[in-house]
């Protein structure tokens, strides 16, 4: 005997009708919740993400379905893919069960496809249970520091375990009642069926019906729980990957300041819909927290909490936004909403970020946890309110008046090159210039960086490269201004520089500053500046490879290399500086534990160079300790700001590892 669960009267209603009502209620409730979440997204600022569909599909397959980034943590990657793939299969299973409940006797598939489906369901249900077991073990016993052990997580693990267990038990009881249904394609269910074999038919029928109902009620409840839980991730992660940023990582958005009436983000509605989706997609795994330099040094910015705050602010604002009708800009925050800045997120948090981008590259589902949102909030604070750490004003004014953040005389910009055979573009008039050397503010004014500028000049001259500088026509590239939120100042500087460069029809640029490199390469195209931009180490490594430079003098030392964020993580230039170091006789390159994609910030990015570091411990010292612990004689650096930070930290903690710019070493080794 076997009676299907809905083939009886329950609470005075035919089972199918009752079940139908339950399903209908659940679907209506889910559509209500989900549509609210989606309608709020529509109220966000525009951000076109429907381009390059082919690439998006490919990336989605790679990162959403093959979950490439998840396996950086192998244990988590394994149990996550168990649960994920189990859910994909289970979706089919659940739909089949719903159909069966409404139309008793419904069978999804028969024959070989049916058998394959049965096997898949059987195997993946077991895998999900194994995955949940691994997750429980990790939360209960391994407890990695990046995780917050929330009740929400336990609820979800319980719901998942329950729905699988209920289904397995129900199916097992069914097989126990009707042994002819046993199949070699469902080994797990059959094993359970055998285990239940001794029970009375009534008990088995009870287990079957109970398990069936529990499974389905669990899953209907689960679907409705998701939009109110961090596990909304389950529904939003795939679209979030699909809509990922495809523009260069180092390019920030460019608002049209002339046409804007509000600048930056101070309210939920000022965020782009994609920023809000980022919040939905976060499941609080804490991988961003694990790598963030401000977390490491005890500052208030924790990207995992930051994105959760953004999400919660969106949730809080939802009723108000939806009541105000569609579209954005319906009045200021109000109706009991906490302000985004100051309420949900403190100003200290906003100013703490170095924009190193490590959190962004750590996220398995391509959430941008902090950088773009923080820059938007900084834009609001600077452009709308002119409220920022007061020491920043000196840098802004220096850039405005003298074209460099230190405010050194603009007329002295080319003084470093006075006794060198360097021509300016003006002096070079008509001469065939192969490459423009973009010196940058540090390379022009900062003592150590000036020496590196000299080294590059001598390397280029030795290799017979014809080059010129802009001299006093060069001005700050604007990176710091932009990342400190002063978009207006950045755009003024960018337009001015692009005009100068285009005026000389510059095609190829070399610079030794990763910040200049990133901005000119990735952000100037928006202003009509399109150039081939090389970092100093890229050009020099090429010249060495082509035999135009000979590294003849040995430097017998061990050396590590500190990757600058805006060279490595943002632009993928990891090998060029290493190739230069490896080409120097006697120099032995050893990798730091955190290097390349996992390189730790020096603390200067995002305009932090121009701010006081008053909270927590020092990022540069934390990094210098890692470098010193590696035990090499020297550390290679390829950014003037890293050099200042690492150099200061070396003195402060009394480390013995000497920092050298890669080009300084190349100059010394040049035969």
């Amino acid at each position, binding site marked *: 005997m076997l009676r299907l669960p809905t083939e009886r009267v329950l609470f005075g209603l035919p089972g199918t009708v009752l079940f139908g009502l339950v399903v209908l209620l659940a679907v209506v409730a889910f559509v209500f919740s989900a549509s609210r979440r989606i309608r709020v997204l529509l109220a966000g600022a525009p951000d076109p993400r429907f381009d390059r569909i082919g690439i998006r599909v490919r990336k989605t397959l790679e990162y959403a379905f093959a979950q490439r980034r998840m396996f950086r943590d192998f244990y988590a990657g394994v149990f996550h893919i168990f649960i994920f793939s189990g859910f994909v299969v289970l979706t089919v299973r659940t739909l089949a069960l719903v159909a069966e409940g409404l139309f008793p006797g419904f069978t999804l598939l028969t024959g070989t496809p049916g058998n394959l489906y049965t096997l898949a369901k059987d195997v993946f249900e077991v895998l999900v249970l194994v995955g949940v077991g691994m997750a429980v073990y990790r939360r209960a016993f391994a407890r990695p520091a990046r995780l917050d052990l929330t009740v929400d997580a336990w609820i979800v693990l319980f719901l998942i375990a329950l729905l699988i267990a209920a289904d397995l038990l129900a199916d097992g009881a069914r097989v126990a009642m009707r042994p002819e249904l046993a199949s070699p394609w469902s080994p797990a269910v059959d094993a359970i069926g055998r285990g239940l074999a001794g029970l009375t038919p009534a008990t088995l029928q009870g287990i079957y019906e109970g398990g069936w109902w529990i499974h389905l009620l669990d899953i209907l409840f689960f679907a409705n729980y998701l939009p109110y839980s961090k596990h909304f991730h389950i529904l939003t992660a795939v679209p979030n990957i699909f809509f990922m940023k495809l523009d260069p990582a180092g390019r920030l958005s460019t608002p049209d300041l002339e046409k804007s009436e509000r600048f930056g983000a101070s309210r939920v509605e000022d965020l782009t819909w994609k920023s809000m989706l980022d919040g939905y997609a976060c499941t609080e795994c804490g991988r961003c927290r694990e790598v963030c330099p401000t977390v490491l040094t005890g500052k208030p910015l924790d990207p995992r909490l930051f994105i959760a705050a953004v999400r919660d602010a969106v949730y809080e604002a939802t009723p108000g936004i939806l009541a105000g009708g569609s579209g954005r800009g319906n009045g200021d925050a109000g109706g009991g909403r906490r302000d985004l800045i100051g309420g949900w997120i403190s100003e200290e948090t906003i100013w703490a970020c170095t924009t190193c981008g490590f959190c962004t590259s750590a996220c398995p589902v391509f959430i941008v946890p902090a950088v773009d949102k923080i820059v938007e909030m900084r834009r609001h604070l*600077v*452009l*709308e309110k002119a409220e920022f750490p*007061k020491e920043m004003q000196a840098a802004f004014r220096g850039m405005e*008046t003298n074209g460099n953040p230190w*405010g050194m*005389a*603009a*007329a002295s910009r080319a003084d470093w090159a006075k006794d060198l055979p360097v021509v300016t573009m003006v002096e070079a008039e008509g001469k065939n210039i192969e490459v423009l050397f973009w010196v940058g503010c540090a390379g022009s004014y900062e003592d150590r960086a000036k020496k590196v500028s000299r080294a590059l000049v001598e390397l280029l001259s030795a290799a017979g490269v014809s080059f010129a500088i802009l001299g*006093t026509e060069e001005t700050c590239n604007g990176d710091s201004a932009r990342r400190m939120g002063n978009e207006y100042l950045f755009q003024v500087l960018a337009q001015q520089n692009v005009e100068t460069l285009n005026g000389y029809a510059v095609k190829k640029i070399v610079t030794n500053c990763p910040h200049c490199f990133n901005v000119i390469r990735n952000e100037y195209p928006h202003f009509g500046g399109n150039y081939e931009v090389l970092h100093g180490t890229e050009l020099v490594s090429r010249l060495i490879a082509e035999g135009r430079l000979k590294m003849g003098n040995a430097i017998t030392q061990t050396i590590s290399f500190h990757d600058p964020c805006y060279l490595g993580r943002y632009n993928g230039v990891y090998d060029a500086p290493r190739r230069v170091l490896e080409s120097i006789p006697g120099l032995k390159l050893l990798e730091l534990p955190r290097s390349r994609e996992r390189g730790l910030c020096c603390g200067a990015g995002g305009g932090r160079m121009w701010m006081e570091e008053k909270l927590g411990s020092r990022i540069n010292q934390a990094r210098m300790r890692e470098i010193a612990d590696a035990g090499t004689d020297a550390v290679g650096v390829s950014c003037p700001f890293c050099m200042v930070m690492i150099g200061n930290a070396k003195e402060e903690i009394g480390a013995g590892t000497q920092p050298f710019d890669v080009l300084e070493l190349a100059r010394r080794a040049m035969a």
Partner: protein
Amino acid sequence: MNSLVAIAYVPDTETKIKIGADGKSIDEADVKWIVSPYDEYALEEALKTKEAKGAGTVTVVCVGPERAKTGLRECLARGADEAMWVDSGDSRYLDALATAKAIAAVAKEGSYDFLWFGQKGVGYDESLVGPMVAELVGLPHVGNVVHLAIGDGKITADREIEGAHEIVESSLPVALTAQKGLNEPRYASLKGIMGAKKKPIGERKLAAMGIPEAEPSGAKIRWRKLELPPGRKACHLIPADDPAAAAKELVRLLREEAKVL
């Protein structure tokens, strides 16, 4: 509480000074111009006063050539309500008295509780215009103000003098010159910058105000010659073999050559 803030638009303090072809003024070719830093303290204090009282206007005035308008716009961007440009025409160097007369004329046109000045305009570094305007308008004047408290119809100012501070009480209206330390000038928001583009700048012509601008006008400060001071090039290194002798030599140089002790 209405304030009139007189500003000077001057070469940036980092500017490399080059002597002009006439040998008595600077070559303005690559000069970056800024609102004189002391005038920023004056403007900031006027803005703070207005904000604290929740009423009143802040008017800025600048006497100078066309570029003075850029300086006035900066002040409007920071929050000044109105601006007045007194066109000094082709005059390369207007002396303090002529400038003061122009500002005094503007001051008399309005009704101001405060006439604000910077302690000096960097560049000429004369510290003359503020007290001169006070004299011409007939107002009390407190110079070198580092702290200001506004009472009912009067003010109490903390003024810096050599090695001490004078606490000065004055009735209103009053002329004040701002010293460093009075406040921390604000940065203009983009909202302010955009708004400033739309605000009109009033214009006066120096000549039309009956103020003589060009030489020879009798009593007028004239720059006869401008030169770069000798020997500010390399560092004068004092041998340190004998610390006591080195110290004596250093003190001698500070007194006799640099004249700062």
